[in-house]
């Protein structure tokens, strides 16, 4: 009783071989995505080569320079724009006189590492749990889905703050952040994977695979997994900036990366008390964080639209990405 579909024209559908190439081609067609990718590439390079660049400047991110700050005025750097000079390209940190350029680059390492690492943990757990719920028995699905519901419902930031409190101080903080954000934030991925698996399971081609005599595993590998790649990549792409903000937020609150290790959020945390005397100290990490998060967001959006324009609008409305307030 359905109307005859347009049977003369081929229907859209992306064979696996061309998918990656097609994604790249579509992304290239969007200037915003290209610019964002360029910015991110530059940042990653800067972060990777942070020690090299710091050496080029001739500075160390941890060395104090008491002579560069005015102790009479509470530690405000001498000179304009937070003490910019030929030796210190972006000025120095108020109070301690540590070199800002070196600290910002080293901070980028932490921010990027935590954001990407946490996303990887989320994707891994999310895909496994989602698949288990989607393919498993009703019982398994029920239990896993309830756990997912609980995790989705609770603000990640609050639980993360609570969690960071109980772990001993000497545990490496970046690793802790990756684990905490990863372990608390997989629910979104698992929901999407489960929903997608259930949808796929109901499609006729999966039924046909069963009729052909293929076992469960063969069916999952051939028919389900390739179709899951697109939504998982999409969700991972929009998760990276979110995770980056969570890391910055935790460090900002003083429960994330602890001094002397630099991270943008942690720099902003100390900058809170300096913004009247030394605005540059706020604006530099804030600007970098803003640009990076924005670039990731734009790129994530572009990936989402490029992979599946129709799915994109549903993702935007249907799933809430956790935000840190």
């Amino acid at each position, binding site marked *: 009783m359905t109307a005859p579909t347009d049977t003369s024209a081929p229907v859209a559908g992306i064979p696996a071989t061309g998918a990656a190439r097609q994604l790249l081609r579509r992304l290239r067609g969007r200037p915003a995505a290209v610019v964002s990718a360029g910015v991110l590439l530059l940042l990653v390079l800067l972060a990777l080569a942070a020690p090299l660049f710091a050496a080029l400047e001739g500075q160390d991110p941890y060395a104090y320079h008491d002579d560069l700050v005015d102790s009479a005025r509470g530690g405000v750097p001498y000179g304009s724009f937070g003490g910019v000079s030929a030796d210190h390209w972006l000025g120095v940190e108020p109070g301690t006189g540590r070199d800002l350029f070196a600290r910002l680059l080293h901070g980028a390492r932490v921010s990027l590492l935590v954001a990407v690492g946490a996303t990887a943990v989320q994707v891994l757990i999310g895909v496994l749990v989602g698949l288990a719920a989607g393919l498993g028995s009703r019982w398994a699905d029920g239990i896993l889905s*309830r*756990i997912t*519901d*609980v995790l989705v*419902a*609770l*603000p990640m*930031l*609050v*639980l993360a*703050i*609570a*969690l*960071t*409190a*109980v*772990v*001993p101080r000497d545990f490496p903080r970046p690793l802790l952040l990756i684990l905490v954000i990863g372990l608390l934030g997989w629910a979104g991925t698992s929901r999407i994977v489960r929903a997608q698996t259930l949808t796929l399971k109901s499609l006729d081609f999966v039924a046909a695979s069963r009729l052909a005599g293929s076992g469960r595993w063969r069916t999952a590998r051939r028919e389900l997994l390739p179709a899951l790649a697109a939504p998982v990549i999409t969700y991972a792409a929009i998760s990276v*900036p979110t995770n980056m*903000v969570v890391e*910055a*937020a935790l460090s*900002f*609150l*003083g*429960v994330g990366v602890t001094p002397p290790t630099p991270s943008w959020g942690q720099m*902003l945390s100390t*900058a*809170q008390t300096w*913004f*009247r005397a030394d*605005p540059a100290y*706020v604006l530099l990490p*804030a600007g970098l*964080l*803003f*640009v990076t*998060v*924005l670039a990731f*967001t*734009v790129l994530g959006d572009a990936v989402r639209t490029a992979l599946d324009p129709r799915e994109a*609008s549903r993702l*935007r*409305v249907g799933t*809430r990405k956790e*935000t*840190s*307030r």
Partner: protein
Amino acid sequence: MTRYVLKRLAGAALVLLALSVLVYALFYLAPGDPARLACGERCNPRQIAQVREQLGLNEGVFAQYAHFLQGVFVGRDYSTGTSVVRCDAPCLGLSYQSDQQVTQLVLERLPATASLALGALVVWLVVGVGTGLLSALRRGGPTERILTVLTLAATGTPVFILGLLLLMVVCAYLQWLPFPTYVPLGENPEQWAWNMLLPWLTLGLFESAKYARLTRSSTLETLAEDHIRTFRAYGVGERAVVTRHALRGAVPPVVAVSAVDLGYMFGGAVLTESLFGIPGLGKTLLDGVREIDLPVVVGVVMVMGVAVVLAGVVADLLYAAADRRVVLT
């Protein structure tokens, strides 16, 4: 309907129970000695042992959890060595640091959080939904493009950066407002409002980006639906099509997401509260973490859990009220 609410509340109770188990397990099984932390850096082993006894930490994990539940449902007694303190249900324990009842502490901090949340709600409903609607009406034009860029920029701005920038510009540079300090509503309503203005704007504008996108995309999605074509084909003007028919499709998601977000604010607005020094639940949580005051942390997380879970139920009910096609089961 009643049946649905009861079912959901029963489910919510289960979620909260699960949350309490989780939180309890995390804190009481984690490495580190709460007694030592509660006692402070300079305690000797004998004092620590005493504190451990007082806090009931010598009991097994299950007994401790049972006592916690007992406190929540019927109340419990605490001995502080010399005297016995009665903690009535719902008892969330005593603060390690101040010996204050956590339930009381939470109740004291609730008004500040509520002030922040409700004000922010007004801001995001006006600014966020307004922006979204405007960009849907002016789609394809320069207005939409400008709004899209603004929204995108706002999406990329973490709330603490937005707050810091507002503080720098409004308070430090332009000096339009004094640096905010929290004044309770009951004390001086006018001062309360002036001091809350910046926090409201910060949190509200931050959330607005999401609501602008939500409103715009729901409206556009509805515009692409078949029934819009019907009204166009019957001579209904474009403005009426958007405001009467397309915007109507954005109401259920906006209302439901607002309810959920409002729930999140109770305990979740840690960054804003911390930045502006608002003594709300989020700040309480953060202080609890800094002072390793585990009962306070557990208490705030539980209260937040209640708020979030209830908000979820309310959101579903509101969604169903706004979209009658939805059948609650």
